[in-house]
């Protein structure tokens, strides 16, 4: 694979700094499914020649799941360590494919001394598109039905509903909206550290409820913008035995496919 991944340390050794730091996140680093999202994003960045770096071994969990579980100590330990690293490299701009990392870095790091311009990968790509650096040919998806599941931590938590949709529209696909979308979006069930525990007793799991809604439109693709949503929706699709017909894919995976990367 002709991957060109450089770390912040390597840039620093050359006395240079990249255009943007790509914050990979725990899911993106370790989860087999999410790694594909990470790679798809890197391929797009490589393809259009964006000078980016990752922290590699110097990256830690942002602390989001610990914080939302109620453990402020562990959260701040992670946050202050990360801020020390980021400030050491004089990072200005961060892009990440995980809305949870995005939210934490953007909203909760500043009062601890970490001030950066933080972008979700869809926001970053939207910018690149507006600057004319990213061009998307949507032939591969022409007329295919895609529905987008809003991640809570991108949407309601940070009011970003437009960037992911703008990118999806460029694919020439038929974008169908679920009834519960945008401000009314339904959680995938993984937020607030729920990813790491069994759900409380109820009638059904949240991801099943959400996937049921998405599947009712008979889409070809359920598009996501969060590795955790991706896992939850993938599990949901498997639950309904629809994994042959319906793909769950991150927006950058769709873009990479469209560009045949």
């Amino acid at each position: 694979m002709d991957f060109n991944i450089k770390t912040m340390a390597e840039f620093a050794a050359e006395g240079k700094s990249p255009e943007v730091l790509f914050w990979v996140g725990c899911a993106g680093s370790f989860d087999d499914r999410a790694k594909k999202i990470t790679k798809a994003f890197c391929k797009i960045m490589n393809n259009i020649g964006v000078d980016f770096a990752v922290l590699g071994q110097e990256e830690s969990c942002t602390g989001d799941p610990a914080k939302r579980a109620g453990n402020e100590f562990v959260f701040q330990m992670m946050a202050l360590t990360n801020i020390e690293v980021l400030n050491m490299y004089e990072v200005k701009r961060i892009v990440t494919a995980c809305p949870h990392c995005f939210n934490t870095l953007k909203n909760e790091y500043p009062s601890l001394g970490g001030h950066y311009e933080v972008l979700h990968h869809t926001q970053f790509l939207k910018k690149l598109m507006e600057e004319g650096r990213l061009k998307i040919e949507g032939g591969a998806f022409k007329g295919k039905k895609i529905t987008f599941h809003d991640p809570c931590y991108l949407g309601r938590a940070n009011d970003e509903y437009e960037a992911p949709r703008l990118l999806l529209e460029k694919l020439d696909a038929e974008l169908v909206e679920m009834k519960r979308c945008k401000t009314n979006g339904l959680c995938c069930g993984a937020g607030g550290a729920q990813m790491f525990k069994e759900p409380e007793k109820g009638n059904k799991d949240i991801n099943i409820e959400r996937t049921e809604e998405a599947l009712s439109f008979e889409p070809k693709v359920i598009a996501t913008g969060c590795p955790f949503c991706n896992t939850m929706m993938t599990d949901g699709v498997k639950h309904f035995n629809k994994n042959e017909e319906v793909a769950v894919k991150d927006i950058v995976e769709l873009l990479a496919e469209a560009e045949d990367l």
Partner: protein
Amino acid sequence: MQYIDNIIFLILLVAGFGLFAKSLQKIYRNIRLGREINRNDRKGERWETMARVAMGQSKMTVRPVAGVLHLFVYVGFVIINIELVEIIVDGIFGTHRFLSTIFGHTFYNFFTATLEVLALLVVIGVVVFFIRRNFYGVKRLTMKELFGWPKNDANWILIIEFALMMAFFKMNAADHILQLRGVLPEHGSFPISEMTLVPFLEIFSFDNGFLMFVEKGAWWFHFVGILFFMNYLYYSKHLHIILAFPSTWYANLEKKGKFNNLESVTKEIKLMMDPNADPYAAPAEGDAAEVPSKFGAEDVFDLNQVQLLNAYSCTECGRCTSVCPANITGKKLSPRLILMKTRDRLEEVGRNIDKNGKFEDDGKKLLNDYITKEELWACTTCNACTEACPVLLDPLSIIFEMRRFLVMEQSAAPQELNLMMTNVENNAAPWQYNQADRLNWAND
């Protein structure tokens, strides 16, 4: 003896407003039991938010049917209260339709006609609301958690509002007939009464004395009714008609995903990370006062004042619960109940203080006695509840503070979460992977 009416009126007026002021004082005292929170920044934005959301009802438009009906009742209520000014002046000085002398003939006609139309809209609103709530089966209005007082309270409010409007129409109708008969001077225009009640009353050809009695009776009913309703508010979810205003003013203006960082923890961690810190050093003088007695919230005293204000402002409409993913899928969590239980506990604490002069430990806490761990752990922090609330209340912040207490004070997280937190602490990832393997994906 001719002043007896005016004297009774004045006594009722003072007693009614006095009692109400006392209730408000009690609410204020109870809210102040919470921790202080600085929400006095960005004043312009706060006024704007309050004007838009509380006065402008901007979030009620999300559900158009309920929104329009609510607007009827709201606008009617606000404008009909101008009537209260007239009632008070007439009551104290024994005048009749005092505002007509100020407004002049034409404008007073317009004014009274407007009030009649608005009163009709209020009647339509409350009747449809009553049917919707009791026979139509809107899920959030018929959930089990509302059985008992919350459901009865809602119905009482609608019944009282209906009765008040009916008294208003009866008063106008009787007055109008008396005006036509030349018994009373002609003031005002009453299109709705004229179309509905006036013909009905005329059938019976009541004599002037009886109509006078009806007019006076309805006037008194209307007045006493308003005083009663005002004092009923304290015991009712209907408090939102007042507290929606401060609640929207003090609303969280930050992005919904931004949870607060505890400063006390920051200090600890910075000390921990500082290689030059002396681990055996005694804490500096005066530091003890700065350390909070508790992390997170176990009882209402640990919540902040805005959260307690929120609990009093909740009108139990259940829009939050109807969009809560945990609740939708049958879990025990209901954001509405989080606020209702907070209010219940706060009221209990208030009664305790009334009785004992200060709070005496009653062996109860908001946590466990009112809100269970199972509810707290079911929350995905998705903010659907805060988005749905028409008056910007924040049940999520209460859930979050209580989680903090469970984790940081009691180490009582579910085992799987403990594992996750240990992993974050030791491996810098929620899973048990080695930090050194973070870049392996690049070479897979």
